[in-house]
């Protein structure tokens, strides 16, 4: 029976990063993954493939809609099989990359589905059905999450798809209904809209992207509507009838009222994600997930001695980079070091065009907490780089403590703001004030200047607007 310091169940961002860190710290570690490739949801059917399609479809739309403005004429067309293949190629290359990283850090990558088999024991069912048992001083649960199903709307991955199926639709739909106006639905909805589908987003709440600062959500919805996405907010889906050629959805106002039927070639169910804990043998160590299926933790420790948990399957934002931070902190705690993750400083990004990115508190949260704050804002229309790129949509909003100017939250909507939020993550990690950013040189001409100008605005000395 193989003996390990750490056995990690799950090879996604939480699991594989935990495995690498454990290897770096000299622990004997195994990482169990049954999918066949490493990288979990993120790399195989989530963040990465969706970004491949978002990037390609964005270029396609740019070429047909904006090139002429810049003096480039010509019509481009979509070759969907190639677009899907380049996505699959990138994903495959990246999964191989992780396999290499595990090898490099002396991690045993064990292919199969892992299950806790009592204290200190993990059973792995390998492909041929045989089961081996590993002995582990520490077990890390990193089993992640899966799309939440919607009662009445059965995902068949043919006409009714979830976020996984939406990445491999083999034709460009004429019409698509996205159920759920969250980040995943709006990203994938954007992909297919750009490629030619008429997209309608149906959302139960009366706003899009819950958790996003209301200012941002409003501006974001306006932009998406301008791009051609239809929104039906405050609406619930009660039934779906799929045929060979399409889906008929029955909708009702969330507040009650007459039902209506909406038809589309495809329906994407994107109402959220739920933790994966089934067949995990939790009962053998006495762990009981909470009512929503999450495994509770205290500094990544579960209620069972020697069993730890990281990523989507426990509390905190369900994001790959949060799982990665969890994984590192958890292993460092196992190794007797200090490990901590501040979930308030985990950034969120929506990879549409324009992108939306934020970190820290939004205005509604500050108001609810009774915190006195100041606001600095700067629009991209006043930013020279955005202007010459014809990308003036969006703005930056910095929220800072009224007395100390400590940055409490930053919210941005605009081109590639996801690449720029990291600057504020670092600043906030160091308890910086808005003035610290305002007094830091930023290159000209770049969009990043907008971040600095917004910081200046907190104390009323924005210079370029």
């Amino acid at each position, binding site marked *: 029976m193989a003996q390990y310091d750490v056995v990690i169940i799950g090879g996604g961002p939480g699991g594989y990063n935990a495995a690498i860190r454990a290897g770096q710290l000299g622990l004997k570690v195994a990482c169990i993954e049954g999918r066949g490739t490493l990288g979990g949801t993120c790399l195989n059917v989530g963040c990465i493939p969706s970004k491949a399609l978002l990037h390609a479809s964005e270029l396609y739309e740019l070429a047909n809609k904006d090139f002429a403005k810049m003096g480039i004429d010509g019509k481009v067309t979509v070759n969907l099989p190639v677009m899907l293949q380049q996505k699959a190629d990138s994903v495959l290359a990246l999964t191989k990359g992780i396999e290499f990283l595990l090898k490099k850090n002396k991690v045993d990558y064990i292919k199969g589905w892992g299950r806790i088999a009592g204290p200190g024991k993990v059973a792995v069912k390998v492909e041929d059905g045989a089961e081996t048992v590993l002995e582990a001083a520490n077990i890390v649960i990193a089993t992640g999450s899966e799309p939440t199903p919607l009662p009445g709307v059965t995902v068949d991955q043919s006409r009714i798809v979830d976020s996984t199926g939406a990445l491999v639709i083999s034709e460009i739909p004429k019409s698509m209904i996205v159920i759920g106006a969250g980040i995943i639905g709006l990203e994938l909805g954007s992909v297919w809209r750009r490629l030619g589908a008429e997209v309608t987003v149906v959302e139960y709440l009366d706003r899009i992207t819950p958790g996003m600062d209301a200012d941002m959500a409003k501006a974001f919805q306006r932009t998406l509507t301008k791009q051609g996405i239809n929104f039906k907010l405050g609406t619930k889906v009660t039934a779906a009838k799929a045929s060979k050629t399409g889906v008929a959805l029955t909708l009702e106002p969330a507040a009650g009222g007459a039902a209506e039927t909406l038809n589309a070639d495809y329906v994407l169910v994107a109402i959220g994600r739920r933790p994966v804990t089934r067949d995990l043998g939790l009962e053998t160590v006495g762990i009981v997930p909470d009512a929503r299926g999450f495994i509770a933790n205290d500094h990544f420790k579960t209620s069972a001695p020697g069993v730890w948990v990281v990523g989507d399957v426990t509390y905190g934002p369900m994001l790959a980079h949060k799982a990665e931070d969890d994984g590192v902190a958890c292993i460092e705690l196992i190794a007797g070091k200090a490990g901590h993750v501040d979930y308030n400083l985990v950034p969120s990004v929506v990879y549409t065009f324009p992108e939306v990115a934020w970190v820290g508190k939004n205005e509604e949260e500050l108001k609810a907490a009774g915190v006195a704050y100041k606001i600095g804002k700067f629009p991209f229309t006043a930013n020279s780089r955005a202007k010459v790129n014809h990308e003036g949509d969006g703005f930056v909003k910095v929220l800072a403590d009224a*007395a*100390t*100017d*400590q940055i409490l939250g930053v919210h941005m909507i605009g081109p590639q703001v996801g690449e720029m939020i990291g600057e504020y993550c670092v600043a906030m990690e*160091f*308890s*910086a*004030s808005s003035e*610290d950013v305002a*007094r830091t040189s930023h290159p000209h001409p770049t969009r990043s200047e907008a971040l600095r100008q917004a910081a200046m605005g907190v104390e009323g000395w924005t210079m370029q607007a």
Partner: protein
Amino acid sequence: MADIMTPALGESVAEATVARWTKKVGDAVKKDEMLVELETDKVSLEVVSPADGVLGEILAPEGETVLPGTLLGRVTAGAAASAPVPAAPVAEAPKPAPVAAPAPAAAAQAPSVRRIAAETGLDASAIAGTGKDGRVTKGDALAALEARANAPVAVAAASAPRPVSEREERVKMTRLRQTIARRLKEAQNTAAMLTTFNEVDMTAVMALRAQYKDVFEKRHGVKMGFMSFFVKACVEALKDVPDVNAEIDGQDLIYKNHYDIAVAVGTDKGLVVPVVRDADALSLAGIEKAIGALGKKARDGQLAIEDMQGGTFTISNGGVYGSLMSTPILNAPQSGILGMHKIQDRPMVVGGKIEIRPMMYLALSYDHRVVDGKGAVTFLVKVKDYIEDPQRLLLDL
């Protein structure tokens, strides 16, 4: 080789200044012999040699600010005084790493903090930072600025020094002087302070003393002074008017059910205010003994910080210097201070006739936020009554 370390300095005392080394490098020293004198905000204290030997090196020269645990110097064990350690090797001896990691250099400070420091002269490296790894944030710097604004005396000292002419002399304030200055100003800035007066006929107490002073001294080994009467009288008056024995803490008042009377003692270095603990439980002789012991310690510079903490009320006697009347400043956070003055024969009307009486003016400065006028006046009248008729003290009247 034995290390000479800065000792713990007592609660709420962060740092000390090296006032004086009594030995030079190379001098022979004995274990427990006084080597270096440190001054803190509250007291000066002596650091003794940890071993027999020769003072090998001085790492904290006079004037340097040191923290508890800072290495002051080293004693080389054993060597005789006649063989002083050669100076050169000592000078070349590698400096030990500083005990406290140096604060991040100016370049490592946040831009906002650097700006504030440059504009205001704030020493940002002295601020305790709340940011990652103790970094100073803008909020920390602003808070430090505000704290400095609330300590105007310190500001005056820190801001640009004016040139000194030939007929003037610039002398660095001792820490004790600086602390006295800061605390007096703090008291004035904080309390709603005012003073009420009365006068006391000392005839009865003086007669009592004249009658019993020899027996008293023989029996108790201390002289019978007036101070013990005033301490006793104040304790009884405090029991009657508890507001004067209270202090403000935020939105609350804290009433103290113990009577620890601080007695101002003049020394050649300044005024110190040691505390007579649980004065209500002491006899007159016990009070005299306690004051005597504290006064001796004060004059010898031996007062410990604990000796001066936690008083609930203060008595100051300007009379020993000849003061006829004064308005004492509160010893914060206390709410009352009694000023005693010179005893002077004055014509008084007693029973319709003018008589010569030994009189003393009494002053009670009080914090009007805590004590109202009636309470203050009542307190002082009680003190007067007890002194004019000391038998009341005996009978608890």
